[in-house]
């Protein structure tokens, strides 16, 4: 059973997935950030592989990607950094990134390597359903990696069911069609999440985009199995003095009762 499936068997509400950019704020911060996230209550780590042209991301994640690239982060370096991660990291780790750098690395090699260092799943926003079914999905499944599709309020029901059936681990419910780091009106989001919940999907679903604090985390947890926080945490890291203090304060804020 995959680490993600196991997690959701033990915990199906208020699951917190936190995004961080590999190689940010320093090239060698990757593991330090991941360890700190694990220690302070994150259930899943979504590790972003920086790309020069991240279309689905807003300003905050874009600029952290640029910093990481300038720090010298590459997929090779990332796998070197992750080679020993499973000695300290026990929670699920999902890699998020864009297709182009992965294609240059070699898609099959990438999947093999990801699996071998202990990565559990992939989120590739610009790998659409058609290409997944025609070409890439088989390689992902062959390497026993979970694949998490994004769905939006505009995704038609039949397509949504298909994306759900091809996903494993969880489904990524984008709160509204937007890039990351934009504010949301959660009364509108609630209608969509209610609908998702009533669909009795195969996968648990986590809500992402616009989740930034306790209020927004609590709001979506009324319907979802949990949520994904990205830009708000990156912003905290960019302003905070050290990784551990920043992460502790940030996650305490989100998870407090």
């Amino acid at each position, binding site marked *: 059973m995959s680490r993600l499936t196991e997690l959701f068997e033990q915990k199906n509400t208020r699951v917190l997935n936190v995004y961080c950019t590999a190689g940010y704020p320093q090239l060698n911060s990757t593991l330090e950030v991941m360890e700190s996230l694990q220690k302070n209550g994150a259930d899943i780590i979504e590790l972003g592989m920086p*790309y020069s*042209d991240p279309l689905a991301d807003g300003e905050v994640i874009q600029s952290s990607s640029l910093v990481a690239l300038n720090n010298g982060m590459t997929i090779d370096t990332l796998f070197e950094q992750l080679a020993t991660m499973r000695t300290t990291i026990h929670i699920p780790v999902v890699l998020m990134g864009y297709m182009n750098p992965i294609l240059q690395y070699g898609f099959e090699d990438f999947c093999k390597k990801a699996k071998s260092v202990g990565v559990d799943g992939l989120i590739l926003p610009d*790998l*659409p359903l058609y290409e997944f079914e025609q070409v890439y999905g088989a390689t992902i499944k062959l390497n026993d990696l979970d694949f998490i599709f994004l*769905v*939006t309020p505009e995704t038609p029901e039949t397509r949504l069911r298909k994306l759900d059936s091809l996903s494993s681990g969880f489904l990524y419910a984008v709160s509204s*069609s937007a*890039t990351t780091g934009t504010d949301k009106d959660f009364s509108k989001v609630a209608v969509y999440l209610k609908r998702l919940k009533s669909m009795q999907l195969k996968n648990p679903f986590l809500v992402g985009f616009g989740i930034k604090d306790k209020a927004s985390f609590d709001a979506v947890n009324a319907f979802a199995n949990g949520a994904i926080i990205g830009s708000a945490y990156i912003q905290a890291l960019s302003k905070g003095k050290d990784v551990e203090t920043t992460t502790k304060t940030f996650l305490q804020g989100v998870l407090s009762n």
Partner: protein
Amino acid sequence: MHLFNELTNYQQPSEEGYYGQYGGAYIPEMLYSNVETLKHQYLQIMEDPAFKAEVAALLKDYVGRPTPLFYAERLSAEIGAKIYLKREDLCHTGAHKINNTIGQIILAQRLGKKKIIAETGAGQHGVATATVCALKGMECVVYMGEKDIERQAPNVARMKMLGAKVVPAVSGSKTLKDATNEAIRAWINEPDTTHYIIGSVVGPHPYPDMVARFQSVISAEMRTQLEAVTGSALPTHVVACVGGGSNAAGAFYHYLNEPTVELVAVEAAGHGVHSGMSAATTQLGSAGILHGSKSIVMQTKDGQVVEPHSISAGLDYPGIGPLHAFLYESKRGTFMSATDEDALKWAFHLSEIEGIIPALETAHAFAVLPEMNLKPTDIVIVCLSGRGDKDLATYMQAMDMKA
């Protein structure tokens, strides 16, 4: 590879938008419904006789089509072949870009869209978009690289005068690539009542095919006009500059399936193809994904898109449309390049011998003529894609340096 369709007809990509291995729609789910609607409706709308008539009427009465096919006598004598110029520079707004924006604005109306967004490099597409938005009373926002805003000030002023909002793209290289990123992000964040008018034959399917079809009026006219003067619709060569490749796609379109016609695409070599300051995508790039389609992309070995260089903002792009990538790979197209210096030289030369001041982008197409080993019997059509008004500052600078 089952994805790769066997293209026997270069004009028609596969149902999923593939030209050989290039094309497709690598877009985040947030864009799915917008792009899917377009994919299902564009051909149907474009084939509708009422739509065709509306576009044709505007191209005639508003844009000023057909544009002349001009026999360049002095240039022909100098090069030693018969050279015809397809005068897209005489289109309203000064370049071929408006052929596409006229089509897309009417298509946007048919789709019930209320607002238009666009990216622009040299500003010609931005001006052409702002123009049709003014014509149709639609709100218009144009994304433009901060660096391009500086070097194309007259076009920025024109867009503003036409009522468009110009938003600087400040990420990355601050040029066309980043303006396109910003426009795509804006489209993701906009409600579905916004239509994105892409200015070139790039982006996710169906954009490359749709833009090529709207620009194909260029070669449709070429055929009729050339036949009227020479008795044959077929030249030996068609030459066009390529950034993303919209004027080239339009100039090549009705010759794509005519194997005797050599299609010459001219890329911007910047300071020289291997100088590290170039935008010659096919020479420097490799297969990759940029702006939602698979094509040839200038990138590092790690798959990060590199920042290109060209003196002309319109060619300063690290990719190329998937149709062109396929023409390159299949060798149906001949790909050449011209440096900043050659382009500048030819902008002045064409002005002096034909009385036509071309855009810097266009000047690249002329720069390869002496290298084409042309024969006196050859009949060459050069797509004169735009006029040089917008580049006057660069031209004035060059004159100062010469003086």
